[in-house]
């Protein structure tokens, strides 16, 4: 017995914004579209997974209950694990375990954010309580400052330059140029990245992800339903997760991502190696996030990330097609990108990606990174 992703959907954006939506309404619309894609009736959903509810205090603290009620569902499996951008890759594993254990039959993962429309993107405005009082009082930009500290340490350790790091943003933009849904599609160069305003040394503005609205949904079921499904299902072949800290001062090693462990578990479960991966979707909150994930997952050796991302390797036509939507850097970044990484991986495996389609993609690796390099969750998805 196995588990498949049966349906996916994303919300259309206009200049990075949802039009006439709330965080609840967009999740409902995406759920409806993903279930239609799967050919599964809404009322069959008995497992619900979500994270976020950006900008919604109060009921946002119990988003699973708020969302289930809005959707008119009474789930018997509910998971609101929130590990930041990696939440949804973790949700895939949790949903798969619940499905295999018979604790639910149709699992729905949703995400929605109106952070751009509401101008609510701020993780720095929260009162410094509990363990945060030793960290957030010191004026570090949240979150770019923490990623900047990792980037600086990595550069000092391995000699990577800002120009090498910029290649991640350049490649992302080249993919976005092939994605009609991407917000930023005008090609950029390494010099453009280096000339963009410095936000938190050594990260320039174009090293940082966009701030947009967004929404998505993914539907999973056991593979015994495959004959009834409307769209080509994608197999969930492996998953893993690893969580190390919430404050950047407590990160065990600024140059090592815990994707080493989440990815190792996911690939081992799938019985595959990184060399088998045809297309990768790696969370790109910042350019450095991608470099650290590539090394941790084993696409290149320790300290080789700066060289690895150059020479067009991760750009269209390169040997490792990476973030084929344009990612958080150029497509969209609605606070948490993780669910949209999964949507794109499924579409690549189905062969639905038009100008940006990776020919013959059979194995996709999706890695979510959350918090301040705090959390990683990895999924390996395959055809057949």
């Amino acid at each position, binding site marked *: 017995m196995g588990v498949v992703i049966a349906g996916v959907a994303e919300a259309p954006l206009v200049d990075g914004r949802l039009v006439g939506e709330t965080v609840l309404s967009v999740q409902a619309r995406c759920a409806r579209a993903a279930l239609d894609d799967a050919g599964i009736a809404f009322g069959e959903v008995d497992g619900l997974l979500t994270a976020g509810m950006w900008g919604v205090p109060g009921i946002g603290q119990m988003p699973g209950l708020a969302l289930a009620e809005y959707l008119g569902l009474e789930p018997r499996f509910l998971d609101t694990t929130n590990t930041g951008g990696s939440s949804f890759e973790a949700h895939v594993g949790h949903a798969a375990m619940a499905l295999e254990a018979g604790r639910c039959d149709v699992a729905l993962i949703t995400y929605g954010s109106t952070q751009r429309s509401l101008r609510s993107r701020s993780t*720095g405005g929260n009162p*410094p309580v509990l363990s945060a009082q*030793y960290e*957030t009082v*010191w*004026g570090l930009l949240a979150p770019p400052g923490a990623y900047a*500290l990792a980037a600086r*340490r990595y550069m000092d350790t391995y000699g990577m330059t800002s120009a090498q790091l910029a290649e991640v943003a350049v490649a992302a933009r080249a993919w976005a140029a092939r994605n009609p849904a991407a917000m930023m599609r005008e090609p950029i160069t390494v010099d453009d990245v280096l000339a963009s305003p410095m936000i*938190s040394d050594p990260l320039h503005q174009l090293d940082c992800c966009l701030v947009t609205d967004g929404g998505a949904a993914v539907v999973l079921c056991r593979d015994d339903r495959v004959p009834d499904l409307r769209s080509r299902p994608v197999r969930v072949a492996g998953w893993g997760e690893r969580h190390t800290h919430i404050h950047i001062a407590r990160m065990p090693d*600024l140059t090592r991502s815990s994707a080493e462990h989440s990815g190792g578990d996911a690939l081992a479960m799938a019985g595959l190696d990184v060399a088998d991966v045809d297309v990768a979707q790696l969370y790109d909150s910042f350019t450095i996030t991608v470099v650290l994930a590539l090394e941790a997952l084993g696409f290149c050796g320790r300290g080789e990330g700066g060289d690895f991302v150059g020479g067009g390797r991760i750009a269209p036509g390169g040997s490792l097609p990476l973030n084929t939507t344009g990612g958080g850097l150029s497509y969209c970044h609605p606070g948490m990108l993780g669910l949209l990484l999964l949507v794109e991986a499924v579409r690549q495996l189905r062969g639905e990606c038009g100008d940006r389609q990776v020919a013959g993609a059979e194995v996709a690796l999706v890695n979510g990174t959350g918090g301040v390099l705090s959390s990683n969750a990895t999924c390996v998805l395959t055809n057949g």
Partner: protein
Amino acid sequence: MAEEAKPQPVEDDESAPFWAACREGRLLLQRCGACGKAVFYPRSICPHCHADALGPETGSGRGTIHSWTVSRRPAGPGWADEVPYVVALVDLEEGPRLLGVVEVDDPDEVRTGLAVEADFRGDDGPTALRWRLRQP
């Protein structure tokens, strides 16, 4: 418009001794009586060996810069008058790493590995403790 204040730490029973020590000019750490490691931030059990044997220890206030960044934009309105300012991770001589602001005339002076020392102001909260470069 009145200048906005920096967010103040919300002191609790566990953190109050640390902030009180800052006001007295001491960097308060903990040390584990079981595994011998120094611990920051204050906790009820040791995060290394999980023993219930942590006791207070006044740290040297000396360390080295593990990594650093220059905030070119303020982390909220309270920081606007300090831009650009250096935020660094400091590896204390005792072992723990903590975040803090390094006071320098020119951010370009800052490098990973430079020695720093705590600079207590006798204030509350976010200006109670700063770091300055230490001549070797």
